[in-house]
């Protein structure tokens, strides 16, 4: 039997409590339960995680790299959003 009807799952691992889940790779599995088991075997053989998320790759919507400029440039000219934009007189502390 061909395996191509097994969907692709993206795998996210939380390395330890207090950290967010981070993308580590992908795998194929017939369902979510198998995807979790396979993710444990493939991506956490050395205690790399305390929690795993698996997400069907088809469920992820991504911004397009072609639109990168119009999509992200609105943030580029707003330097006043950063604290370093504001001069602070000498001697003023805790600001």
């Amino acid at each position: 039997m061909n395996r191509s009807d097994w969907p692709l799952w993206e795998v996210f691992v939380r390395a330890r409590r207090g950290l967010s889940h981070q993308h580590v790779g992908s795998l194929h599995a017939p369902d979510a339960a198998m995807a979790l088991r396979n993710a444990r075997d493939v991506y956490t053989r050395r205690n790399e995680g305390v929690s795993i998320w698996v997400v069907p790759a088809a469920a992820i919507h991504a911004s397009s790299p072609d639109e990168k400029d119009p999509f992200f440039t609105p943030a580029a000219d707003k330097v006043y959003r950063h604290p370093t934009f504001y001069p602070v007189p000498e001697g003023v502390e805790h600001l």
Partner: protein
Amino acid sequence: MLQLEFDERVAADDRVEPRDWMPDAYRSTLIRQIAQHAHSEIIGMQPEGNWITRAPSLKRKAILIAKVQDEAGHGLYLYSAAETLGVDRDELVELLLAGRQKYSSIFNYPTLTWADIGAIGWLVDGAAITNQVPLCRCSYGPYARAMVRICKEESFHQRQGFEILYTLGHGTPGQKAMAQDAVDRWWWPSLMMFGPPDAASTHTGQSTAWKIKRFGNDELRQRFVDMTVPQADALGLALPDDGIAWNAERGHYDFTEPDYAELTAVIEGNGPCNAERIAVRRAAHEDGAWVREAAAAYAAKRAGREAA
């Protein structure tokens, strides 16, 4: 315009990510290389799996099982990286089983004694690490990230191999002779793992320009020799090359080049185990079909129940 953006990104040492535009040849080169790399990990399970039941102690068995399991994991990281380029893993597996994609020629040599497991870890994995560490900075993001994980795990492999040989090398005369015999047989094929000399290599130039490859075959081979010669002294074992000598002028060890005609012959399918490796992989794939079918049937049944 797109080409320019790609060139600038590579020149700036920035990473190319899956949905970026890339030249077709860059994509197909990566697919070929990553698939070959993934296949090597999977086929590489065989020569070592051959010794799991005969490892000399329960501890050695457990370690060897963990190592072989790592190789399977490495194969999966790499298939996953290849899939980001728009190929299907099934397709790559079929190409391997049909003999239309290659794997590293090193795995076409047999593991005759327990000491071979040591020599594979020390020399073969040592050579692999030398090749792979620069790939952690490869221009294609998913491949580079997979290589970071792989390199971390490979260092366990190399040390466990060294430790096997160290133990044998400091054991009975018979054990030491077995260790020496394994090193004698694996040394030359390990040197061949870096590929033909740069002057004869078909892929090196373009791959270097694309920053898929960072160093030439000859440079990496030299690096491996420089690293390995002092380790052989520590093991108390000899490398089977009278030509090895420190060259103070170059700051490197001189050594004899391996027989590249043998490398070509093995790549072309005439190594000691080529036919066996593919036959075993095919059988494993076919014998595992019922597991894949059962898993799919179970998932379908559960999905049906949830829908009802």
